[in-house]
């Protein structure tokens, strides 16, 4: 079953068509990376899902229930971490979690137990002091704890790592990895390496609609082109190989740099075998033979053109 379903979402601010028929489905237990340029509409989409903003068309369903603007009862399924979470600086972490738990209507004993568990999970169990002295990373981690307090089925994080230094980023990503399986995580980001590290599914938002979505493996497979790189031991081998008749025909791109030849062969399923055959026919043993996987960066750059 899918936890979050967005269908044909439309939103326009004045002349600016922010969302233009956005369709997105997040299956249960996914760690879902919601990628897009700054200003692509990620935060806007999240605010609509939380019922904080009214869409002009389309539907959003969380755990099978329609989201309604203003009185979003669906929020009981959702934990939300804003991009820069703000807390009452005069409170201690346990006090803040208690306040959140009381507002969510949880019974006192379970608030206490759950709070301690979560502070341990996010590594703040020893930080029993006022939040005003917390670093950004600590606040972000407390933000995750408060979002998980009511055991939500869906955790939504808005750019959880962008404001953090490398250590803080690693800690936040590790926590999000650790809760994989317990809850579904949707997080927006423009940092692709974060997505590669922890996500199993991604969706790329561009001009108000998804231009790319699926599991990471699927996407890479779909967009894999027959690209190879061969490094030769000798210059003359490289030159000789690149001048072969079989490789100098339409549909094949060659580029030689020093002793590295990059070859893109379109539409040829057995391209790798062809190259190996050629190599052995010419009796050339390359130093390195590699099929080039598309990087997320190159894919992103491609779809966002």
């Amino acid at each position, binding site marked *: 079953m899918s936890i979050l379903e967005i269908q044909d979402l439309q939103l326009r601010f004045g002349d600016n068509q922010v969302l233009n028929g956005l369709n997105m489905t997040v299956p249960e237990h996914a760690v879902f990376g919601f990628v897009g340029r700054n200003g692509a509409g990620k935060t806007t989409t999240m605010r609509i899902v939380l019922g904080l903003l009214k869409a002009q068309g389309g539907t959003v369903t969380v755990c099978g229930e329609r989201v309604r603007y203003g009185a979003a009862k669906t929020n009981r399924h959702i934990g939300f971490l804003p991009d820069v979470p703000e807390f*009452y600086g*005069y409170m201690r972490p346990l006090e803040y979690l208690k306040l959140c738990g009381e507002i969510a209507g949880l019974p006192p004993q379970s608030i206490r137990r759950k709070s301690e568990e979560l502070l341990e999970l996010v590594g703040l169990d020893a930080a029993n002091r006022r*939040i*005003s002295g917390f670093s950004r990373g600590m606040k972000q981690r407390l933000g995750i704890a408060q979002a998980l307090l009511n055991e939500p089925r869906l955790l939504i994080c808005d750019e959880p790592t962008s404001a953090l230094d490398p250590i803080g980023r690693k800690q936040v990503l590790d926590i999000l990895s650790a809760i994989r399986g317990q809850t579904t995580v949707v997080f927006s980001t423009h940092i692709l390496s974060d997505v590669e590290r922890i996500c199993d599914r991604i969706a790329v938002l561009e001009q108000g609609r998804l231009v790319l979505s699926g599991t990471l493996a699927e996407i890479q497979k779909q967009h894999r082109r027959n690209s190879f790189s061969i490094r030769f031991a000798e210059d003359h081998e490289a030159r000789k190989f690149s001048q072969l008749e079989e490789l100098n025909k339409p549909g094949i791109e060659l580029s030689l740099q020093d002793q590295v030849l990059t070859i893109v062969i379109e539409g040829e399923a057995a391209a790798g075998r062809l190259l190996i055959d050629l190599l052995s026919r010419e009796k050339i043993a390359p130093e390195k033979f590699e099929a080039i996987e598309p990087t997320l960066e190159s894919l992103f750059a491609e779809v966002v053109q």
Partner: protein
Amino acid sequence: MEILQEYWPFLLPLILAQLVLLITALMHVLKHQNYRFGSRTLWIIVVVFFQILGPVAYFVFGRGEDG
């Protein structure tokens, strides 16, 4: 001196209240770096030399956000 003897039931709690205010304000100034405006030196002078008004002004106008 005569006034002191006659009015100690007034002066004692007054001085006490003033001291409480002075000490809490001074500790707060020294423990924090962020003020809504003004520098640490300014607030120390204000808190120490302007009785009652100084600490009140610090807590109402000068204290940065949070705790």
